[in-house]
């Protein structure tokens, strides 16, 4: 809502407030002032001039030489505007004037003819192009009413005005009118509101003799009033009105249209004027549109309506889409003599539906959608008639032809001083409450410390105690509330076990050299189904898609974080950031339905991508690139720290390198995978050798087994044995390791691979794996014989299970 302060002053005394001080007060009290705009800069030497004569320039077709009376003198001005004529009152910037944009007016010679000033357009004074009436857009401004020659134009053109831009929250639709703003400002400044003049003379003819109103859709239209004004002269509206409309961002058209717009802004009540002579009947019928009913709106578009839309008809065909836009057929034009003025209350839902279906949001529809003040509907009609009589020479017919089932009741809300103070933490007195209610201009009935507030209908947002609590608090001033801390029992806050574990996982990842990334949950359908972990794949029937995505790019909820991280890797690589180590903890969205009807499961995953240099210290010849084992080491370290037992198994997963991918199992349950991205998929991201991992955090969080109990540090020495075995090259070391673990007996303390060899001195297709076994008994020193016996057991077992023999 744009609020002209000059206009606002018509209703409330602003005292010595500057635009800035007033804006600050309004903001603090409840309506945010988002900006202050001045119509023009302060102008000097810009006055009203009278064009005494206007002759063609001897040497230039498009220029005129004018003699202009500027009050104190008569000066010659060369003017290029096509619409300049003798006998006009115009805006003259005299020599010495400085126009917006630091445009200095000096004495000049134009094609040899002396010019001592400039005749101006509104734009040249700083008025925005879109607010300038169309017929004046290409030329100078011409005064069409009586003005005093030689006087400063500022007041005539409202150039000293400041416009406040109010950012209205949805509840404050009362401030969608100048009067509403006036009440707000009056409450802030403790002033009274001066209401506009709504009186007019009437002819003997009654409106009800000329039109009959019938409302069929009673729910949608509890009030419909039709006034009639005859003998209308269509012309420009008064300059002051045009100025205020322009200040409010509305382009002036003609007196009738301007008056309806002016009253809309003044009262917040939309009005519509029909040309009664073109209405085609004397019967107004308000009804729902029929299916496929056609209607041409004033913008000359033919609209197809349906039963969800409310229309104003002449008994046969629509003349307006209620509250949204009038019809082309009965539009007010130059020739209009009689108008039918509609002042009505349309239900917000009906109007919103039409706005939505036809994409027609307007100043009118916005107000109906939010709900207008029942007590201003008819008053706005009166106000418009007052203005029509004055500025359109109208003869007003008596009375109004109406349908009226509107609720005009003021709602009562009871407040008590005690409860106000209890909720605000204040010590406001009864007297202060009274002062606040008076400032708001709310009537009330007092009984001790209890007040029954009769909330005026302009404030439809106030219906319960808490609404009044806010009114009291904001007029009292949020600044005046104390700073207190809750008095309720203090209980300690704490992370849940899962939340703490999540932080732990992040620490491990970051300690291992990975940086955290956060990507979008919404992706393309194609990407959503890429690199989906086997454990997710079996659960997800199909990815969850938005009903109406804004773009395919963000249309589907992800089933894996990896495709997004690969896109991030690709982005970084394209910017020469080739060494990548990123992880993300986030949810994937798993639905077990083909057509989603219930919330998908949101499962926490830990995903990572790595490529490029891992270790780089060139002058020491240390250079190591990320490979499978770098990535696996990180995953193993995390899982080991979480105290979970897992097995890695070679796996074939879509989008992954068939020879360099492992699926991870815990308790025979798949909990993720790790490996190199298939080069074909990597290529679609412009990536080459990149490694990824993806883990089921839901499982890991639940499986965590790290009870911190003390274990005696071994007091007896461990014994160590190395064993080198030759076996088929394809035998997975993990399986051999498992065999060793189960065969070695209870004293095996640890076992790990320390050498892998294939090549010279070994038969084709064979490899050698060397293991180090450590034995320990915490209660005593083991004997050589015991260790030897275990060692022999191991040899037998690996031979039996894997055909592995001791390397010669």
């Amino acid at each position, binding site marked *: 809502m744009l609020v002209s302060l000059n206009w606002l002053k018509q209703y409330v005394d602003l005292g010595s407030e500057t635009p800035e001080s007033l804006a600050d007060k309004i903001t603090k009290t409840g309506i945010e002032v988002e900006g202050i705009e001045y119509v023009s800069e302060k102008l000097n030497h810009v006055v009203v001039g009278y064009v005494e004569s206007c002759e063609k320039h001897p040497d230039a077709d498009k220029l005129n030489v004018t003699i202009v009376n500027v009050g104190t003198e008569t000066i010659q001005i060369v003017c290029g505007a096509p619409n300049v004529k003798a006998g006009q009152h115009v805006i003259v910037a005299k020599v010495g004037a400085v126009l917006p944009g630091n445009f200095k007016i000096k004495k000049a010679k134009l094609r040899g003819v002396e010019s001592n000033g400039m005749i101006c357009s509104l734009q040249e004074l700083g008025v925005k192009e879109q607010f300038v009436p169309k017929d004046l857009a290409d030329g100078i401004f011409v005064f069409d009413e009586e003005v005093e020659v030689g006087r400063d134009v500022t007041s005539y053109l409202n150039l000293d005005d400041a416009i406040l831009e109010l950012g209205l929250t949805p509840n404050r639709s009362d401030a969608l009118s100048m009067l509403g703003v006036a009440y707000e400002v009056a409450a802030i400044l403790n002033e009274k509101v001066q209401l506009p003049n709504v009186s007019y003379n009437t002819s003997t003819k009654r409106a009800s003799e000329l039109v009959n109103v019938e409302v069929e859709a009673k729910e949608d239209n509890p009030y419909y009033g039709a006034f009639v004004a005859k003998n209308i002269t269509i012309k420009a509206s008064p300059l002051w009105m045009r100025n205020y409309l322009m200040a409010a961002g509305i382009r002036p058209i003609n007196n009738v249209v301007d008056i309806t717009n002016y009253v809309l802004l003044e009262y917040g009540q939309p009005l519509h004027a029909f040309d009664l002579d073109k209405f085609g009947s004397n019967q107004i019928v308000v009804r729902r549109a029929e299916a496929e009913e056609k209607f041409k709106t004033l913008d000359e578009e033919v609209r197809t309506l349906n039963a969800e839309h409310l229309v104003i008809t002449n008994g046969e065909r629509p003349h307006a889409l209620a509250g949204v836009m009038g019809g082309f057929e009965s539009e007010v034009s130059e020739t209009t003599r009689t108008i039918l003025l509609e002042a009505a209350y349309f239900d*917000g839902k009906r109007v919103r539906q039409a706005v939505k279906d036809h994409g027609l949001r307007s100043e009118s529809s916005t107000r109906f959608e939010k709900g207008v003040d029942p007590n201003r509907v008819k008053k706005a009609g009166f106000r418009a008639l007052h203005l029509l009589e004055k500025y359109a020479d109208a003869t007003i017919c008596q009375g109004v032809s109406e349908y009226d089932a509107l609720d005009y009741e003021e709602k009562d809300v009871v407040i008590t001083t005690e409860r106000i103070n209890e909720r605000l933490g204040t010590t406001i007195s009864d007297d202060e409450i009274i002062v606040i209610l008076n400032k708001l201009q709310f009537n009330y009935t007092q009984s001790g410390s209890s007040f029954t507030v009769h909330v005026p209908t302009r404030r439809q947002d106030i219906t319960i105690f808490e609404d009044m609590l*806010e009114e009291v608090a904001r007029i009292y001033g949020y600044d005046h509330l104390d700073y207190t801390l809750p008095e309720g029992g203090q209980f300690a*806050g704490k992370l849940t076990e899962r939340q703490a574990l999540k932080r732990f996982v992040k620490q491990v990842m*970051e300690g291992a050299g*990975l*940086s955290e990334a956060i990507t979008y949950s919404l992706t393309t359908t194609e990407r959503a189904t890429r690199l989906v972990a086997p454990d997710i794949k079996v659960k997800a029937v199909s990815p969850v898609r938005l009903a109406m995505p804004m773009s395919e790019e963000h249309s589907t*909820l992800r089933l894996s974080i990896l495709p997004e991280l690969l896109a*991030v890797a690709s982005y970084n690589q394209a910017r020469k950031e080739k060494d990548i180590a990123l992880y993300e903890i986030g949810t994937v969205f798993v639905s077990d339905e083909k057509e989603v009807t219930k919330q998908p499961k949101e499962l926490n995953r830990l995903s990572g991508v790595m490529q490029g240099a891992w270790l780089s*210290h060139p002058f020491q010849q240390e250079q190591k690139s990320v490979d499978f084992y770098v990535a696996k080491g990180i995953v193993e370290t995390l899982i080991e720290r979480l105290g979970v037992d897992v097995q890695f198994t070679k796996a074939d997963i879509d989008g992954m390198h068939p020879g360099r991918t492992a699926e991870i199992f815990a308790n025979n349950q798949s909990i993720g995978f790790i490996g190199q991205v298939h080069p074909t998929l990597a290529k679609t991201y412009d990536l080459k050798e990149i490694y990824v991992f993806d883990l089921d955090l839901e499982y890991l969080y639940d499986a965590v087994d790290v009870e911190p109990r003390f274990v005696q540090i071994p007091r007896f020495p461990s014994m160590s044995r190395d064993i080198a075995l030759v076996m088929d090259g394809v035998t997975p070391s993990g399986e051999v390791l498992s065999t060793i673990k189960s065969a070695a007996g209870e004293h095996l303390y640890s076992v790990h691979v320390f050498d892998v060899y294939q090549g010279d001195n070994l038969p084709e297709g064979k490899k050698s794996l060397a293991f180090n076994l450590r034995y320990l008994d915490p209660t005593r020193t083991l004997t050589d014989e015991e260790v030897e016996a275990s060692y022999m057991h191991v040899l037998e077992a690996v031979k039996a299970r894997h055909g592995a023999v001791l390397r010669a």
Partner: protein
Amino acid sequence: MQEKLHALKEEALTKVAQAEDLKALEAVRVGYLGKKGPMTEVLRGMGKLSPEERPVVGELANKVREAITTALEEKKQRFEADVLNTQLKTETIDVTLPGRPVNLGGPHLLTSIVTEIEDLFIGMGFDIKEGPEVETDYYNFEALNLPKDHPARDMQDSFYITEELLLRTHTSPVQARTMGEYRGNKPVKMICPGKVYRRDTDDATHSHQFTQVEGLYVDKNVRMSDLKGVLNQFAKQFFGEEREIRLRPSFFPFTEPSVEMDISCKVCHGKGCSVCKQTGWIEILGGGMVHPDVLKMAGYDPEIYSGFAFGMGPERIAMLKYGVDDIRHFYTNDQRFLTQYHKA
């Protein structure tokens, strides 16, 4: 005998002094103190001495032996030190060359901010609650006093999946869920951080996905001044002791009265500058007293219980606190951006 010992001592000490390396020194030791050396010989001859002479000569012999041993030891240490020094000299490296870097990652800036907010509120006794990102229309809107045709739903155009399911537009449904879980008879003191989604075209200041941290406190006799006090404490801890807060009336369907909180501008301290658009204040969060309908729907009697709620956007806070100029940076994950915020 005594003269002989004296002479031996002099002779040995001279040889020690003349020895030029460890090997020569060892030869001296073997030559004089070894089994076949003169000292042993002298001591062997002790038996021939009279009982009176024996202790005198014995003591002298020990002294001589000690003197030679000490001299040998001192010289040996000097030689060893020389050897070590020579070795150390050859081991000298360029200590100004860089060390081998340790691979250390770090958290995303948004996570750092959320974690800091979480920890501040945990310190004030709040718990952290989480909830689903795909929400039901009921929890996202209706339970928060936004019935189906409420005009305020326009404020946050949403991503619907079905008529009843959508991507949550705020983390407030977690509040409604938590209150429901506590069944209306237990105080609620929680914050809920998380991802939220709105139908916005991504640009420098809009993102279809962003982060929110919301808080809720419901108990008997919670006052609006408590909201002011708690937010003030948070603002001072998070933004700095010198920052002031200001509450302004606002509107949210789930709170009444509603507030918007500004903090004084860090740059101009309230005087007005380009950072705060000349107002002296920067908008940080919204909040208010929980609407009685919201309490009622969650099973809390608004006659007995009252509460406050608030919410803020970590992206906006990060942008203000660190001058990040484009919200898309948070989701592009340029490593050069991510690593800027890994320092202590």
